């Protein structure tokens, strides 16, 4: 019976297939130098570790999120498939100068996420596994397209919902037209930013994010009135009574991310105004990894003693 159970656990491959993610291969000795000018993290500081980093637009807002992984002498860049042509365009002048080839190799790889409670089956075929540096986001796996297929693979939606719960942006494509700076997304708290690679405006704010930032990307939990409710994304307003306190960014199931204006939100909390989005009651909270930047973590007891 015990043997049967072990067999069962080997056959179960609980990885979540991230169908929206693709891979670019940077081939050539200057691959790192070609990528470095575009991203906000210094590659050499991270030596040979896999790296989660971002490309910003001209105004210093998040544009592309990408994982950089070394594979033989090349770099593999994992990112959203829709952003691949944009990144290849951005890379092309640097690649030309350094004689590096940038190639879309999405057809060769499948991208998986493995949450902290999940196990994946190692069938002996080639795979690349690297940790997601964001707390409790587990790890990623790149497996060749021709490796074994499992009927147990989970949906990307579960992975995205887990990210929403934790207050992380699953992909910059989910921002749609909203402009969010790396500090508003809390990347400084995850040590994903190197100050010297940031625009000057953000370099000043990074020293005192508690006072320097007026809005934050925060998790929003939906407390639905009924069995069905509309999608809360794409900049839908989040209201406290009639006052707008932020905009919904992306949403799956009961969990969403919202860009919240801190002062109006705190004022609404003080007067006990009910928060809602798309006519559904919502709750906004600080994620536990960012709690040090909240004004108080106390329950009612701590709150009353503070009032005294």
């Amino acid at each position, binding site marked *: *019976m*015990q043997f*049967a*159970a*072990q067999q*069962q*656990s080997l056959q179960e491959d609980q990885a979540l297939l991230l169908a929206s993610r693709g891979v670019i291969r940077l081939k050539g000795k200057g691959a790192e130098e070609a990528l470095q000018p575009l991203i906000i993290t210094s590659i050499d500081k991270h030596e040979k570790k896999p790296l989660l980093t971002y490309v910003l637009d001209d105004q210093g807002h998040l544009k592309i999120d990408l994982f950089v992984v070394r594979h033989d002498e090349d770099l593999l860049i994992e990112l959203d498939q829709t952003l691949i042509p944009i990144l290849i365009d951005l890379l092309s002048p640097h690649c030309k100068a350094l004689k590096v080839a940038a190639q879309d190799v999405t057809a060769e790889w499948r991208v998986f996420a493995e*949450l*902290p*409670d*999940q*196990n994946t089956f190692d069938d002996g075929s080639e795979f690349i596994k690297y940790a997601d540096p964001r*707390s*409790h986001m587990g790890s990623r796996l790149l497996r060749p397209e021709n490796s074994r297929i499992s009927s147990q693979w989970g949906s990307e*939606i*579960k992975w*995205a*919902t*887990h990210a929403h*719960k*934790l*207050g992380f942006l699953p992909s910059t494509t989910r921002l749609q037209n909203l402009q969010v700076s790396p500090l508003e997304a809390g990347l400084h708290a995850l040590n994903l930013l190197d100050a010297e690679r940031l625009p000057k405006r953000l370099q000043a704010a990074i020293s005192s994010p508690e006072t320097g930032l007026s809005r934050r990307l925060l*998790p929003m*939990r939906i*407390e639905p009135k009924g069995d069905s409710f509309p999608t809360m994304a794409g900049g839908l307003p989040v209201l406290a009574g009639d006052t707008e306190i932020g905009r919904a960014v992306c949403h*799956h*199931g*009961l*969990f969403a991310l919202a860009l919240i204006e801190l002062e109006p939100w*705190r004022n609404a*909390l003080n007067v*006990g105004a*009910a928060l809602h989005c798309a006519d559904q009651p919502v*709750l*906004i*909270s*600080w*994620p*536990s*990894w960012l*709690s040090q930047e*909240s*004004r*108080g*973590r*106390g*329950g*009612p*007891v*701590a*709150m*009353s*003693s*503070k*009032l*005294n």
Partner: protein
Amino acid sequence: MSEKSVIRSTELASTQQRSCHKGQLDDPFDNNWLEQTRQEIGADLVGVLAVDEHAHPDFLYGVKAFLPSAKACVVLGMEYASETMNLIKPPQKYMGAVKTGDLLAPHVNQLNIEIDKANSKLVKKLRKLGFRSLALPSRGLPLRPGEIKASLSFAHVAEAAGMGTIGTHSLLITPEFGTRTRLTCMLTEAPLKTTRRIDPVDDCTHCLDCVKICPVGAIASPVPGARYQIDAMRCKFYREKFDNCGLCQKVCSYATGHSETTGGPLIASDAFQHAQADYVRLDTSMEDN
């Protein structure tokens, strides 16, 4: 006690009652009153959820069942001793050793007695002020007909009262004691106001350690449309028939930093790579017997 003193104490009660009713404008039941009362009755935590027509239907169901005229629900919390929680071990580690985790059940009984005492003190205090009040038992309430669902969930009321967050394991995690919190409730006609937190923090770290540690796989990583996914029957059956368990509580207090000892040894153990296999092993050992 002389007749005169009886009259005096009655007068005092009615004066307090009047001042409370009159004081609705200047709110006699503010946070200071609540904190003072908490200290008087000897509870570790207190929170209030006011009853109004927009409240959650599950909450209103409980209120209607027990005290339909209630205007507020007061939640009291008492800390579990971390010394007792630290003695809890997974079943494999008990092989041939003293089953120290069995101390949890008597400790819970003791806490129930203490918190029920605090609850009845609060009820008496509010009754003296002229408000009908009902203390609910900390052991739990009767289930709803045909459902494995409490008629009033203390943890959910506590979350709505700003005392903490319900985690992936469906237990309340408070900022003060994490999951090491025993709860009870009382319903009252006193017009208490809902307590709220400044900058609410999600106390659950969503680390999924509780999912990994559950020896019977009763806790699942929730699907997008759920906050938590618990197989209540499996959990209840295992706790009643095999072990007092409490592993999810213990591992959560490591994850949220509410344990006296740091770097808990439980999750790092290879034995817990496949929680389902442990259940089967337990099952097999029973067959052998």
